[in-house]
């Protein structure tokens, strides 16, 4: 029932202004507009569609078609609060309508029960902010199911003995298996593990207006030209627009949330494409700008009443950054896999989801996936075994042998919440709009590095068992670059130790809500997007109830 696209004036006080149109913002826009509210979504990036997407690697990756541009938006990095940060690209996120869901891998794992209550189970971990969530898996289960059915997720229910309970099967069968998946499945079974078809937010069957995956091979990092990837752009954003209540306004870079003398948010101030400033007025404000930009925006919005940043009475805005730990191993096989065809991942296992610390010597756990996510240029620059010549006939020979015969095993896992790991405002470096740049302070907790060393060894064993003729791995080192931007405005019942409550409402500002990766209390085991979307569906229900009860009115 299309009612045509609606536009609002900035002076119209809409019900909600949402900052960010990605995994969470898109869902909130769809749900709140479907519930009859007037919604404006402000997206800093452009409104691209399928026709704008391309297989030109240089345009997409080197020229940042879909992501933050480090030339205009520099970021800085340091390992500890004592250091002076240096300018280097430390974060990657989607900067277009649909946000990071446009370019993501589309790995779509539910969190398990343990992720929400692990602190209660294993106790304190000194030096960390390890905590339980104020919600449990059972609270989110209906929303996980809703995500799967609304946006379209491929998978096989019951295939993993480690899966949490679910109320419904997947809406469509798994995507086809790839060579990497077959090799991984056979080898890991031989070793006693339980591999299964990866749940992916990519259509294995077409839906109205969207093709099933055609296996084009330009997936991770790229926008899907046939709408098969279940991004916010290809799903909830369009549903939101069809309500006739929601305006998606691109090229709007929000730099401040305005607050009145009663401490209530009045709207979002932004630069348009010509760098003119506007204030979109709204009865309530929702930040879904991602786990880096949401805390940055709160810090940028400091004023006399909120000298340390908006909604920051706890001092925890930007703290407890958890980027997930990662390790990567590679194998080359005798015969062609042609794994460049298709999407990235077709098989995973979660046997290491919850490890016994007494046996392995570390807290946490994760999952492994079999993949090939190299595009041609990418592969030539970083996909050959260490020591391979980098030019000349032997370089060319290695390219021609290995591109079709290589696969990767990606290990994903927990990050512990450490308070000094954070996003803050850089005191010196400014972005192209003159705003303080995002500064990342990060050093992996030694536990997480220990876990990744261990998982990397398992990945190498699997490659061995699979019959790889050459295998190697990335060194497990301290991370200086974050893609999963989690935990930086954590949810909790206590206003002293968290930024938002279980309704995603900030403890300090009654009509200001935060919902994105920043809301997470623990990191999960490496694939956060589905949980971010389930939280957004739940948040929309909670916010709707509050609005209808009059609780958001001044």
């Amino acid at each position, binding site marked *: 029932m299309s009612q045509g696209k609606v536009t609002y004036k900035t002076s119209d006080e809409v019900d909600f202004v949402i900052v960010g149109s990605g995994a969470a913002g898109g869902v909130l826009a769809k749900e709140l507009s479907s519930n009859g509210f007037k919604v404006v979504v402000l997206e800093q990036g452009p409104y691209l569609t399928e026709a704008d997407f391309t*297989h030109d690697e240089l345009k997409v990756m080197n020229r940042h078609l879909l992501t933050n541009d480090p030339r205009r938006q520099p970021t800085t990095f340091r390992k500890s609060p004592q250091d002076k940060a240096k300018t280097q690209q430390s974060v990657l996120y989607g900067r277009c309508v649909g946000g990071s869901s446009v370019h993501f891998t589309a790995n779509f794992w539910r969190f398990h029960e343990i992720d929400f209550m692990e602190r209660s189970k294993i106790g304190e971990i000194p030096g960390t902010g390890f905590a339980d969530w104020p919600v449990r898996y059972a609270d989110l289960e209906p929303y996980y199911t809703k995500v799967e059915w609304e946006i379209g997720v491929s998978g096989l229910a019951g295939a993993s003995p480690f899966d949490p309970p679910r109320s419904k099967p997947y809406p469509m069968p798994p995507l086809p298996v790839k*060579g990497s998946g077959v090799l991984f499945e056979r080898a890991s079974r031989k070793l006693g593990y339980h591999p299964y*078809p990866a749940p992916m937010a990519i259509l294995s069957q077409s839906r109205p207006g969207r093709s099933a995956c055609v296996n084009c091979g330009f997936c991770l990092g790229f926008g899907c030209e046939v709408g098969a990837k279940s991004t916010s752009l290809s799903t909830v954003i369009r549903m939101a627009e069809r309500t006739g209540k929601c305006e998606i306004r691109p090229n709007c870079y929000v730099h401040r949330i305005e607050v009145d003398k009663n401490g209530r948010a009045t709207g979002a101030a932004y630069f348009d494409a010509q760098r003119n400033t506007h204030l979109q007025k709204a009865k309530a404000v929702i930040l879904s700008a991602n786990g880096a930009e949401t805390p940055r925006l709160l810090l940028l919005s400091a004023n006399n009443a909120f000298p340390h940043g908006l909604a920051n009475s706890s001092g925890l805005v930007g703290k407890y950054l958890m980027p997930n730990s990662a390790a990567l191993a590679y194998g080359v096989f005798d015969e*062609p896999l042609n794994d460049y065809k298709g999407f990235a991942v077709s098989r995973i296992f979660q046997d290491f989801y919850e490890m016994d610390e007494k046996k392995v010597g570390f807290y946490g756990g994760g999952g492994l996936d079999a993949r090939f996510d190299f595009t*041609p240029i990418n592969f030539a620059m970083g996909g050959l075994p260490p020591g391979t010549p980098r030019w000349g006939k032997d370089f060319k020979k290695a390219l021609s042998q290995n591109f079709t015969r290589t696969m990767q095993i990606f290990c994903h896992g927990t990050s512990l919440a450490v308070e000094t790991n954070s996003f803050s405002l850089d005191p010196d470096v400014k972005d192209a709009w003159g705003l303080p740049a995002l500064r990342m302070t990060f050093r992996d907790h030694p536990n997480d590095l220990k876990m990744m060393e261990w998982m990397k060894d398992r990945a190498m064993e699997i490659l061995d068992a699979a019959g790889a003729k050459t295998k190697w791995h990335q060194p497990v080192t301290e991370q200086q670059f974050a893609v999963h931007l989690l935990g930086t405005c954590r949810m909790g019942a206590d206003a002293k130790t968290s930024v938002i409550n279980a309704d995603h409402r900030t403890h300090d500002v009654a009509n200001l809500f935060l919902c994105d990766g920043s809301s997470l209390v623990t990191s999960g085991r490496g694939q956060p997007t589905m949980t971010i979307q389930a939280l957004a569906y739940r948040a929309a229900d909670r916010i709707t109830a509050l609005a209808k009860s009059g609780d958001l009115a001044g």
Partner: protein
Amino acid sequence: MQAQWPSLVAAAQHAHQAVQSKQPVKFEVFTSEQAREVEAIAARIIPTDELPGATEAGVVYFIDHALKTFASDTLALYQKGLPGMNDLTAEMFPGVVRFSAATPEQQDKILKALEEEGHGPKAPTRRASTMVTPDFLQTIWAHTIFGFLVDPEGGGNRDYAGWKVIGRDPAHSFLPPFGFYDKDYPGWQPAETEKK
């Protein structure tokens, strides 16, 4: 249904035809002398054998256009680096006045010498030659790979020469099985002993 699909294929075909057209090419940035040197260096990074190399992929045209557009910030590196390569050639092989006039074996020795001095892909900078900055070799190396392997929509990889070498089928859609190992896959079955 394949939403958007016909238009995508049409666009891809159009891009493909554009790179196949054999119009006389005028360089946008390079002089013909510079183009000759760039082509010679690129041809040692990805040489031609029974399979096409950087020359057949039209890498020099890709780089020329890149320096006019999205890589214009590296133009100065080329303007300094190309004469530097010629000077180095003359120093190593007296009587040979430019890189492109050296034999392939001599050219490889020049690149090798630079690499050993710490030039080239991702190598740390050590006693780098004053004639050729490490940045230049790193840059032309990357640009050669870009021009060899980018989707032709991106202005390189003429006639999919680069993708022929790596074995990437230029089609825009594929059906399983994709390769050797998934050919006889029977479908996913639960393991015989599922244990938790």
